[in-house]
């Protein structure tokens, strides 16, 4: 008959209490948030009395996870970037070219002279003067290939060489292209993450999306352009010998040279050697600092091998200029005054303090392997977010009160039971959201409000059944029992179908749609739990105490 084992009752109430406890920090959002931030600062930067005081605003034995507020509620910037993975192919070919040259050179007798032909950037086209030596040339070039290290590409090599007439075409194999794309995106992801971490904002979301996309969401940042400035620059730093200086962008650069514009002086172009002395990859540190005249500058330090190369070069070239090149623009081209042995130096230019700080961040975080193209940008101001929270709060409260009153009017005491369950339900949703670190968005709030409306459904199903059983003349205990057991299949079927749509929304959606799916899905789970277990325990406990002869639902 009407019985629930003691351990089950304890378990049910325990779940509710845990849910309430987990949800509680959200009621003191700002305070808990400050306390959490201070705790992080203490582990990162050490204790100060003020930080300790802020930490103590929230007792440490209480749960302190909060629901993340989405960008639309907190304000911030959202970017969807596509990594131009194919950029890397050309760079790979350029670095392969000297190797090809080196293996073919000793074999001039068989292959004759050879020259690189113009062609697509992701290929090397090589013309040899003795086509009869082609098979030997191919053999040598193929000897440069390495096996591809990826699961799908097992058994294939990274470069493919083929011959038509007297031309050898070398390019990356398809397997290597796939593996390279994957590496490029991972590396970009890591660098984007480092750059954003350097700036020190809270809880950025940096995720890979699809094959070649990166989703970046940073709360609290002023605008997407600001975010783009931090992550968007490739920050390829090189130190290159200067060949000449002029004002013609189309001048003939000569073999092994290239022409790049000056960053600060429009109309000035430098001819520099393509092969740099040292690159940003040899950098171990970069800090914003000031030059002799007090202007903002960036000081840097090389690793041992970079320092040696830099030292050797400066020792041999005193009196000649060399260029500091950032993303194919000359930041400055100082004349080497003396041998710089220690591997550290300073970049000066017409920087503002902000620019020098950003440049230091970029250099420290390393260069992006490929360019990013921004496909989607969203900036949401914090005021708009606050407005939405306020509006959402009021709407939720009104919806809540409306439904509570309506339930009591319709079902009396049983309505009150359902209402307690409804309140627990919302607490459980917040508790679960905090626990899994879910993000609450504006449509998410709508999802909660919708849950408020729909959560009573399971109870309504049960209560209507109980009414029917009572009408059919059964006793109170029997009616309650039957009401629950008969309504169960409808409750399950109805909620499973809604849950399916929530899961699909979650899987297919992004951003706000996902936020909505999370609250809807959690709402379904918690409302089924409260309807099947919580109200039942309440009704049974009430029934055992009162033993009513008749009940009215």
């Amino acid at each position: 008959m009407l019985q629930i084992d003691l351990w089950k009752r304890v378990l049910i109430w325990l779940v509710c209490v845990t849910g309430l406890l987990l949800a509680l920090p959200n009621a003191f959002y700002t305070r808990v948030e400050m306390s959490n931030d201070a705790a992080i600062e203490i582990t990162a930067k050490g204790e100060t009395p003020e930080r300790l005081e802020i930490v103590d605003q929230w007792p440490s034995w209480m749960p302190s996870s909060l629901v993340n507020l989405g960008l639309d509620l907190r304000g911030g910037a959202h970017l969807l970037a596509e990594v131009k993975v194919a950029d890397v192919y050309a760079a790979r070919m350029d670095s392969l070219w000297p190797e090809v040259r080196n293996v073919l050179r000793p074999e001039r007798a068989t292959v004759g002279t050879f020259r690189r032909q113009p062609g697509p950037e992701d290929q090397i086209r090589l013309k040899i003067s003795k086509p009869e030596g082609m098979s030997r040339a191919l053999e040598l070039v193929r000897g440069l290939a390495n096996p591809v290290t990826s699961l799908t590409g097992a058994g294939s090599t990274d470069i493919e060489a083929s011959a038509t007439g007297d031309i050898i075409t070398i390019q990356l194999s398809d397997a290597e292209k796939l593996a390279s794309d994957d590496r490029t995106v991972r590396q970009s992801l890591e660098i984007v993450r480092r750059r954003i971490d350097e700036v020190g904002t809270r809880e950025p979301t940096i995720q890979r999306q699809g094959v070649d996309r990166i989703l970046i969401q940073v709360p609290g940042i002023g605008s997407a352009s600001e975010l783009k400035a931090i992550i968007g620059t490739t920050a390829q730093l090189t130190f290159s010998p200067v060949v000449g200086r002029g004002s013609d962008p189309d001048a003939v650069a000569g073999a092994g040279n290239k022409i790049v514009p000056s960053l600060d002086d429009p109309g000035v172009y430098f001819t520099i050697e393509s092969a740099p002395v040292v690159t940003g990859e040899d950098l171990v540190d970069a800090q914003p600092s000031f030059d002799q005249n007090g202007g903002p500058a960036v000081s840097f330090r090389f690793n041992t091998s970079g320092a040696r190369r830099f030292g050797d070069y400066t020792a041999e070239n005193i009196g000649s200029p060399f260029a500091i090149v950032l993303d194919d623009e000359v930041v400055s081209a100082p004349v080497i005054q003396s041998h710089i042995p220690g591997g550290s130096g300073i970049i000066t230019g017409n920087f503002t303090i902000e620019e020098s700080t950003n440049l230091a961040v970029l250099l420290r975080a390393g260069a992006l392997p490929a360019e990013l193209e921004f496909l989607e940008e969203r900036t949401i101001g914090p005021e708009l977010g606050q407005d939405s929270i306020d509006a959402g709060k009021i709407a939720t409260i009104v919806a809540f009160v409306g439904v509570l009153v309506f339930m009591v009017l319709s079902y009396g005491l049983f309505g009150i039971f359902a209402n307690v369950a409804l309140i627990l339900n919302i607490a459980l949703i917040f508790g679960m959201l905090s626990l899994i670190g879910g993000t609450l968005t504006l449509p998410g709030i709508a999802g909660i409000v919708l849950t408020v409306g729909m959560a009573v459904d399971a109870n309504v199903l049960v209560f209507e059944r109980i009414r029917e059983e009572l009408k059919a003349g059964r006793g109170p205990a029997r009616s309650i029992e039957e009401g629950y057991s008969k309504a169960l299949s409808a409750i399950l079927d109805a909620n499973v179908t809604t849950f399916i749509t929530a899961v699909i929304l979650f899987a297919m959606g992004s951003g706000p749609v996902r936020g909505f799916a999370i609250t809807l899905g959690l709402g379904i789970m918690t409302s089924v739990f409260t309807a099947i277990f919580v109200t039942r325990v309440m009704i049974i406990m009430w029934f055992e105490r009162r033993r009513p002869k008749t009940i009215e639902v």
Partner: protein
Amino acid sequence: MRLKLVPEKTSFDFFNSWKLWMGFSSLLLVLSVVSFFAQGLNFGIDFRGGTTVRTESTLAMDVGAYRKAIEPMELGDISITEVFDPTFEEDQHVAMIRIQAQADGEAISGETIEALRAVLDEVAPGIKFVSVESVGPKVSGELVQTAVLAVVLAIGAVLIYIWLRFEWQFALGAVAALVHDVLLTIGVFAAVQIKFDLAIIAALLTIVGYSLNDTVVVFDRVRENLRKFKKLSLAEVLNLSINQTLSRTVMTSVTTLIALISLYVLGGDVIRGFVFAMIWGVIVGTYSSVFVASTILLKLGVKRDWSKQANTTGNQFANIDA
């Protein structure tokens, strides 16, 4: 005294004028399709690409002046609308500026936004850009695809679930009701030209969920009654089941509508379109689960006795003698 929206015992006949309801639904469907093809949907930037800027100024806004200021920038098609909302302060004047997708694949350049801010600041000093959202043409097409796929997948998954739990006739009835609801909702969006963006897809799928919820509750009762009242005709069983669950159907729709309407009125203009879609969906979903889904189930007929093997059609082994 209890509040009762539906009398204790009802015995409406839902099927004696089924032709009327089907006609009514068909008319609405035709209107939806016509309005969809005649006017199309007012796609937001999620699906069309482009940029929307939400501005806020303390000065009363003049759409003409804004337009005049922006036009020399040659950004192509722009639309400027003032937003009114009861939750706004008195000196809060909000405008939505929509700019078409620019030629290159990128979303939008920071310079364009800065330039826009500069020209608008001339007209309305101190203007704030409270949100700037930009979707490049490359992504918007994919978003449409994913959205359509999501709706189709959801309907498909549900079809399979109900088929497994009930019978294929039930699944077909429920899915017909779903498609009916989704089409009518899209029709309303086309007719009223409310902005159709990604959030609306979420609303559509919720409608799918809600409508199903309703239909499944009715069907669950039908299944139970079919076993219980073997003598009654299918129409009688359906009528009985709908009447028995009517009180619940109305109760739940009312509580959901209470919640949604308060969100519609008080939730701010940002999600109003989204909430509107759900309100409409709840109403249509309730209607369709009673009239559309059940009528289709009635017309398809259903196998009555699950305990015995069916001895006639519908089964490839049915007429083989052993």
